[in-house]
């Protein structure tokens, strides 16, 4: 497992993990230890908001893994995120038990409302946490496996692949909108009560979810760094830049793509599963093509092929979105578009590119740039 330990020796990963741990600790302490009236107190509302940003950050890391290193522009990662979210949502629905509005011992409210008399087969098992958590990984993973197998085997790449991923998430959105699907139709799943026995409305649970999101982001980041820092990561970059040449060297490029795509989809699923209990709802809007495009904008703004750039992009854009939609909601989309244009023109390598440039001036070896990692030094 030496390849999993390798990221810990990289300075950029150490720096990233350090900042993340400090941020998690500071926010937790400022929320729990200080009284509500204190000027430095961080409200539980803010903690949950930050937890949401962290789950978005993990999603952005997943997209950067396939886009930055493999050159596959997925415009459908929202689908994997939403599937993970639905798996978590189904578990949370089953946890409600007979405390729903209609008080049915097994069926969720929306099923009672639709006059269903028994649980559909695909809802079986979601009352068990281990099963639901396994599904958080498996549902997006299997979809990515089947979709990726067909797409990469036929050597569909570039714009065509982007369009197909977009169609995939759009088709899923339409399907999940239908009441007959048994996922709550356009209302989705909501009114959650408990997660693993913890009351979702309590402050401590919310801080716990925030920390869990941070830990998941750290683990996901380490897994991605381990992949891109390995020889497989170099094969990814090679196939991104010269696919035919990589094949000619004897690598099965379509299998490399499939492997990384599935890992990325599973990370997106985990992000969705952490997102749902924090926002309290999952509905088909997470499948909307627009959301998937927004994720790509976060990564582009933060800087491709760095991983930490995706984290920065996701947090900054979503913070800006929170502020903007509060102050002048109608201007948000213009601001996002304007920001995207500005960064593309002025900072083609995103915010991370700016950071790398700054660091490089102060020290000789800059932070682990995706395309600058010295393979020999890290192996």
């Amino acid at each position, binding site marked *: 497992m030496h390849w999993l330990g390798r990221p810990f020796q990289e300075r950029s990963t150490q720096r990233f993990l350090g900042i993340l741990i400090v941020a998690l600790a500071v926010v937790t302490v400022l929320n729990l230890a200080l009284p509500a009236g204190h000027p430095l107190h961080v409200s539980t509302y803010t903690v949950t908001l930050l937890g949401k940003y962290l789950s978005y950050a993990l999603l952005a890391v997943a997209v950067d893994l396939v886009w930055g290193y493999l050159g596959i522009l997925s415009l459908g990662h929202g689908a994997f995120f939403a599937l993970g979210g639905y798996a978590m949502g189904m578990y949370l629905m089953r946890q409600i038990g007979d405390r729903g509005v209609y008080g049915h011992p097994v069926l969720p409210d929306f099923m009672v409302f639709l006059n269903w008399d028994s649980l559909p087969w695909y809802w079986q098992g979601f009352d068990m946490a281990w099963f639901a958590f396994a599904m958080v990984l498996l549902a997006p993973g299997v979809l990515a496996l089947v979709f990726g197998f067909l797409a990469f085997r036929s050597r569909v790449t570039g714009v065509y692949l982007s369009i197909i991923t977009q169609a995939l998430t759009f088709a899923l959105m339409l399907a999940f909108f239908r009441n007959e699907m048994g996922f709550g139709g356009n209302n989705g799943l909501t009114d959650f009560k408990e997660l693993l026995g913890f009351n979702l409305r309590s402050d401590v649970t919310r801080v716990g979810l925030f920390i869990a999101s941070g830990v998941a982001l750290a683990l996901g980041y380490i897994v991605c760094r381990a992949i891109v820092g390995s020889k497989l990561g170099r094969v990814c*970059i090679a196939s991104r830049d010269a696919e035919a*040449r990589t094949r000619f060297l*004897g690598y099965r490029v379509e299998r490399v793509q499939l492997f990384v795509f599935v890992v990325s989809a599973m990370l997106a699923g985990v992000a969705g599963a952490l997102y749902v209990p924090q926002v309290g709802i999952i509905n088909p809007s997470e499948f909307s093509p627009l959301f998937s495009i927004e994720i790509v904008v976060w990564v582009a703004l933060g800087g491709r092929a760095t991983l930490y750039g995706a984290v920065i992009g996701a947090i900054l854009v979503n913070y800006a979105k929170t502020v903007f939609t509060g102050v002048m909601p109608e201007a948000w989309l213009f601001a996002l578009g304007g920001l995207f244009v500005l960064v593309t023109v002025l900072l083609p390598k995103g915010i991370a590119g700016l950071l790398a440039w700054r660091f490089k001036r102060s020290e000789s070896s800059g932070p682990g740039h995706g395309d600058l990692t010295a*393979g*020999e030094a890290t192996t």
Partner: protein
Amino acid sequence: MNILKELANRDRVFDFLAPADSPVDVRHGPILYMENVTVSFDGFKAIDNLNLTIDDGELRCIIGPNGAGKTTMMDIITGKTRPDAGQVWFGTRHDLLTMKEPEIAHLGIGRKFQKPTVFEALTVFENLELAMSVDKRVIPTLTARLNGEMRDRIDEVLVMTGLVAQRHQLAGILSHGQKQWLEIGMLIMQRPRLLLVDEPVAGMTEQEMERTAELLTGLAGKQSVVVVEHDMGFVRSIARKVTVLHQGSVLAEGSMDQVQSDPRVIEVYLGESEEAA
């Protein structure tokens, strides 16, 4: 009974169990043998009754005017093009006409195309690392680790190609000549038995050409090398044996001096290019 005893002897490694160093059998003759090969595209005979043999460890230059069939010949050897008639053997055991491109590549025929393609976002060292002949499936690649032997192998090729100082540079910032050497180095990493090199010095400076000549002559003996080249000065500097192709078949073969004094060769090729040069 004797056979049973032999089989029970656990120290013994049977011939058929011993890992073959290379499956190519060159004990009884040349490493590459082409006989009466003919290919036509829409009636035009690109290769016409071509006979060519390359000995193990030989460095051979192939020259000829445009359209003489040099590239088509390489396509046939690597399995990209199938001839209409004739035989192509690699060693005495492998009939290349029955094999597919990846199999032929795996068997040990490496080809360098005219235009250098290296992985520009990776360092020189990493380029060579990726080219190394090891298990290339996904999981072994993920957990791959360089051992001392592999490092030595990469270092050896770095020395051979004269890229030691550039080992940690990105391949994208190498000069044109350095990229060509790196690509030859990537081929060497795969330990081919036969190297096909297409116009290695196109666009190179005089000094780069000299280095390339050293590199290729240094390879001969360990590997068989076939160089297709237009530049006569370069060919003269490396070739021990030259084959002149013309209209898809061999016009002349021999040392550079022999070939140059052949009136037919002067007529179709050398005369003009000597004047041009």
